[in-house]
Structure formats: structure tokens, C-alpha cells
């Protein structure tokens, strides 16, 4: 065996040349080509645009909390939204003052600025719940809450609204009156004016059947309630 390795120079060279060869894996070629490829150049205008967009977004985030809330441009809608909010508050937390009319009327008139020479105090279908002064649309007013036999809450609100124009397109004839029926946030509202006082009745009675009963309730309240400015 020892003689085997006393081989000639040519023999050893042949053995070396015959050593197995390792071929490069295909992925290596791919990775080299990818690494050698220059990264796609970003358009020259992209960086300033991104910077401007980021600045705008940051400013918007800073300013957004101090921007005024978006309110409807239509004054009637603004009033309706305000009275619906008041009604919602009553549904969630109840009336703040549960007084029995008419003993509370002097206090209520004093606080609300609205006198009620005549007021609907409830009947077999609508039960008086509470009356309280409110402050809506920068006006003092009076709110009277009722509950019907089916559990629907109704909120009657009267407050000075000399510039309020009841929209004709929403008016609904009920007997000798033509109040407007407006909807907001899932609530229905009757809107009408008595002199310079804007009057509203809000409820969640929005279905066709409910609206018919809501008309009856309007008639009862409208015919027996007379709000006037106290001073």
C-alpha cells in the first residue's frame, strides 16, 4: 500500500483534478443578482410630499380636538338636535326635578322664563312625570316630561325662538294645526311655534302606528298648553 502513494507527480495531479466539484446552489445566484441590483430609486418629489402629508396629519390631530363640533346649518335642525339631546338625557338619567304641577309653576316660571298659563297635566293615557327648566341653544326654556301607557317617554319643550321658521315641507295637518314632523337620531319631534315661543314634543315613536298616536298626544298637549315669555 505504501507504494501506492509513491506515485508520480502526474498521477497525483490527476487525482487532484478528479476531486468532486461542488456546484453553486441556484438560490445563491439569485441572491447575488438581487443584492447587486440597485434599489429602485424613490422619486425626488416623494420625500417632500410624504413630509408634508405627515405634517398635515400631525397638525390635524392637534387641532381636531379644539375645532367646534359640526352642527347643522339649518336652525330648525339645530333646535331639534338640542331637544332630542335633552330628551335622551332624561331617558338615561331622568328628570332632575320631579315636581307636581301646578305647585311648582311659579318656581318653574322663574327659572325658565316661560310662563304656562295653561298646561297639560296628564290624563288617562299620558302621565305627567316631571317639569324642569332647561337651557338649549343659548335660551332658557321649560321641559315637561310625560310617559304614555305603553311606556313611551315624551318630552315637551318650550323656549324663546323668535327667528325659528317651521319648515313647510315637513308640516303635517293635525286637526286645525300644522306642526312639522322632524326626525333626528332615531327620535321623532313635533315642531311648531306659538307666538315667539318654539315648541317641541320629542319621543321615540317613529313607526307608522306610533306616529298616529303621537299625533293624538300632540293634540292633547297643544290644545291645553299655552307657553308665553314670562318677562
Amino acid at each position: 500500500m505504501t507504494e501506492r502513494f509513491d506515485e508520480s507527480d502526474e498521477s497525483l495531479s490527476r487525482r487532484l483534478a478528479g476531486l468532486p466539484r461542488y456546484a453553486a446552489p441556484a438560490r445563491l445566484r439569485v441572491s447575488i443578482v438581487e443584492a447587486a441590483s440597485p434599489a429602485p430609486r424613490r422619486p425626488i418629489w416623494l420625500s417632500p410630499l410624504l413630509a408634508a402629508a405627515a405634517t398635515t396629519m400631525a397638525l390635524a390631530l392637534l387641532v381636531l380636538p379644539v375645532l367646534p363640533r359640526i352642527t347643522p346649518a339649518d336652525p330648525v335642525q339645530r333646535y331639534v338636535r338640542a331637544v332630542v339631546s335633552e330628551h335622551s338625557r332624561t331617558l338615561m338619567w331622568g328628570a332632575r326635578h320631579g315636581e307636581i304641577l301646578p305647585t311648582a309653576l311659579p318656581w318653574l316660571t322663574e327659572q325658565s322664563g316661560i310662563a304656562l298659563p295653561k298646561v297639560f297635566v296628564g290624563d288617562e293615557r299620558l302621565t305627567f312625570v316631571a317639569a324642569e327648566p332647561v337651557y338649549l341653544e343659548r335660551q332658557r326654556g321649560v321641559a315637561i316630561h310625560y310617559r304614555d301607557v305603553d311606556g313611551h317617554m315624551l318630552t315637551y319643550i318650550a323656549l324663546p325662538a323668535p327667528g325659528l321658521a317651521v319648515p313647510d315641507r315637513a308640516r303635517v295637518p293635525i286637526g286645525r294645526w300644522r306642526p312639522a314632523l322632524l326626525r333626528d337620531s332615531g327620535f321623532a319631534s313635533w315642531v311648531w311655534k306659538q307666538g315667539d315661543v318654539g315648541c317641541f314634543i320629542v319621543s321615540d315613536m317613529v313607526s307608522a302606528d306610533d306616529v298616529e298616536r303621537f299625533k293624538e298626544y300632540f293634540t292633547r298637549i297643544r290644545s291645553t298648553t299655552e307657553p308665553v315669555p314670562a318677562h
Partner: protein
Amino acid sequence: MADLDFQKQALAHLDALYNFAMYLTKRPPDADDLVQETYLRAFRFSHRFQPGTHLRAWLFQILRNTFLTFYRVREREAPVAEDGVPEWDVPMFHHAPEDDGTAMDAHTDLERAMRRLPEEFRTVLLLAEVEGLPLEEVARVMACPVGTVKSRIFRAKERLRGMLTDYETK
């Protein structure tokens, strides 16, 4: 970075470079890294390549320099295998798929002996005998005179014969 023609010409030698890298590093992941680094350097400094000279020798030179710069440090820190045999003494070709049993055995001893050669001896044998580069190109890769290359080849073969004899008599 190099133009596409240069890249294409350089990548034609990928298999040869990878084979050389495998003999130097002994580990496929290291060979991958070494070859990739070699190509990236070649592409980056393609303007230094002199047209008309051998591109393959230039690439081998970059690969060897890169190996000496980075990978020999790691090689010195190579851990000893669990069986106590240093990693540099493990046969490299026992997974070579194209070998039959007889050739595998012979190549295993030959490769084991190759691994025990100093890098200067191993590289001249790989370039001159395995890759078939002219001695002038080997001298360029090794950055030494042709006479030195001849001397190293002679001495490397002498050492190989001695080690192969030792393996055979064990």
C-alpha cells in the same frame, strides 16, 4: 455598481468560485457568504478590472483575499466536534453525490490530507491542479512570483504524499 454585461461574465464563474470557497471554508453556509461577498466586491470595484486579463483569476483573487480577511479569523475559532476530532480533520467529500464508493474512499483521504495543508499550499493546489489555472494566474492570485508558486506546489504535493501514506498505513 457593475453593468449587466460584466455581471453576466462574472457569474459565468460562479460554480468555480463556489467550489473553491467550499474547499476553503469547508461549510456550505460559509461558502455561500464568501461567494456572495466576493461578487459584491467584484461588482463594486469592477472599474478596477483590466479588460483583457483573466476575469476568473481576478475573481479568485478577491475571493481568497476576502477569505483571508474575514473567514480565517472564524476558522481559528471553529469548535471541536463532539467526537473530539477537530472539524478541519473531518472528510469533506463524504456527502458528494457523484462519488461511487471507491472514489469516495480515496477522495476522503485525499481531502483529509488537503485540509491539513497550510492555506498557502492548499490554495496553490486548488487553483493549479483542481481549477487548472496557469501558473502565472495562480501567482497573481497568490500575489507572489511564479517560482514561489512552483515551489509551493512541489512542497504541497510532498506533504500530501506523506499524509496519504500515513492514512494508508493506519
